[in-house]
């Protein structure tokens, strides 16, 4: 891993941050909770909880419908949340931000709508070996429906994409590339910019699954020049049930609505319906209003700490934990890419990951074990699964020490 310069410890006020997250002070199985499952979902600061509470307590009304004050005010609140996401991703226009249920929903939206317009028999779609099932299955389904072909970018043993092979896969039949920004199992940060520019040289659009990137890295969609980018609210310290699809205006205008219904239209008659402009064309039904407000608050919260400080601090946690883990006998880290974020996956020789997770849980340490919804990737490494530790900025070096001690104990018990 590339060594970053030591951070100015004052940029992250860990005590103050931890005090914002009520759950971090609870005990699990009689021990102080050590939450290392941030890749699955992140905890919520009081500010996000309060924002949702305030909406339901004092602001609840439907958006884009009523003429009354409550409806008008919350419509402004909802659109402000959209603008906050636009600003955070540096999208060119708020209409390029679509609220979805999450990353999975966003990918399904693009797979379904894009394929209706642009995929036909014999076309090719490219994904990679390290994709989450959510960035495989929607495309696999499209391929079945359209008799298209799914092509897969391989990885090397370090868990990095083999770009030469990727370049070989690109051809005139390739219609879209769907790729993770950061691997949820390995933590690899993929060279998205290179992937996008190679695709764009052939006018092929690229969808980036940013679910594991947005919590850890500054993402600038214009700089990346990606065509679609998606992430989930709950992984960036916001509520569950809300997510974001960024799409370039030119693409969103060209693809048909995904789900249709209230809110997506200009005029409806039984003869013909005229759909609304983006983004409303893609937001059928009453959206998760509370979710959007909570998400915008979570984004504000992250920005207050500062993503540069977060990235640097988490990198230090990752380097520290990696060094400690490497010293343990029988431990093998999966995913040793030069560029990594947030995630540390490992196996212990002769011990099932499930057993390690079970023992750590007894010690109040929450890790994820299993295939992490990346079965093709886990199959590539020929393991039954891994133990995954995934960090957030509220984790501490001391927690890593406790975890390492706990792991040593677990290994002794299970050997």
């Amino acid at each position, binding site marked *: 891993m590339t060594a970053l310069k030591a951070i100015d410890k004052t940029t992250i006020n860990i005590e103050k941050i931890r005090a914002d997250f009520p759950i971090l002070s609870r005990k699990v*199985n009689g021990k102080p909770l050590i939450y290392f499952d941030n890749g699955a979902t992140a905890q919520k600061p009081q500010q996000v909880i309060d924002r949702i509470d305030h909406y339901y307590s004092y602001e609840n009304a439907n958006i884009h419908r009523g003429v009354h004050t409550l409806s008008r005010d919350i419509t402004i609140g909802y659109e402000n949340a959209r603008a906050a996401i636009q600003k955070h991703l540096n999208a060119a226009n708020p209409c390029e931000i679509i609220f979805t249920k999450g990353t999975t929903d966003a990918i399904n939206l693009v797979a379904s709508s894009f394929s209706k317009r642009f995929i036909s028999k014999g076309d090719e779609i490219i994904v990679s070996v390290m994709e989450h099932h959510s960035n495989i299955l929607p495309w696999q389904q499209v391929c079945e429906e359209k008799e298209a072909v799914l092509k897969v970018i391989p990885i090397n043993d370090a868990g990095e994409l083999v770009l030469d092979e990727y370049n070989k896969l690109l051809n005139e039949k390739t219609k879209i590339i769907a790729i993770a920004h950061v691997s949820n199992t390995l933590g690899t940060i993929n060279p998205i910019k290179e992937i996008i520019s190679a695709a764009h040289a052939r006018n092929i659009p690229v969808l980036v699954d940013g679910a594991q990137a947005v919590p850890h890295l500054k993402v600038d969609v214009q700089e990346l020049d990606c065509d679609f980018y998606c992430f989930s609210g709950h992984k960036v310290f916001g509520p569950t049930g809300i997510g974001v699809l960024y799409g370039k205006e030119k693409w969103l205008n060209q693809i048909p609505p995904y789900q249709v219904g209230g809110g997506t239209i200009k005029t409806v008659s039984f003869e013909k319906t005229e759909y609304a402009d983006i983004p409303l064309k893609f937001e059928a039904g009453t959206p998760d209003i509370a979710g959007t407000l909570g998400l915008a608050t979570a984004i504000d919260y992250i920005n207050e700490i500062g993503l540069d400080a977060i990235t640097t601090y988490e990198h230090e946690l990752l380097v520290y934990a990696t060094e400690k883990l490497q010293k343990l006998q029988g431990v093998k880290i999966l995913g040793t890419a030069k560029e990594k974020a947030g995630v540390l996956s490992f196996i212990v020789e002769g*011990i*099932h*990951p*499930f*057993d390690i997770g*079970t*023992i750590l849980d*007894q010690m109040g340490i929450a890790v994820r*074990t*299993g*295939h992490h919804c990346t079965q093709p990737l886990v199959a590539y490494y020929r393991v*039954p*699964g891994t133990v995954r530790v995934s960090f957030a900025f509220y984790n501490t070096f001391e927690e890593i020490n406790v975890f390492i001690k706990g792991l040593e104990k677990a290994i002794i*018990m*299970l050997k």
Partner: protein
Amino acid sequence: MTIEETEQEIIDEFELFDDWMQKYEHLIELGKSLPIIDTKYKTDDKLIKGCQAQVWLHSELKDGKVIYTADSDAIITKGMVALMVRVLSNHTPDEIINAKLDFIDKIGLKQHLSPTRSNGLVSMIKQMKMDALAYKVKRE
């Protein structure tokens, strides 16, 4: 010994432990001591797929009683499997079908029966009872 008596025996056994570590250490020991299933039965049709840990279960009827052998790739799951085999094996199909199996709760390992699909245990218990039912139906 009846199923209930074996359950009580296990409850008494687990009551000796002061903390979770001893309890799990015992469970791990039980897992290690579970007679190894004949490899010819470790086939896909004997496999009960959990999301993480896998369980293999084989049963046969001998003198009107169901004999179970089982295995798992995770040792804690295997310990739980050993307990289930100890409780249910060598009983008649009727006894097995009617077994309540509330000892798991009483020994404080109920979380292993939560519907997380993470281990194959819930499915295994179901399969043990299904096998017993199949033998009962065949006999009648």
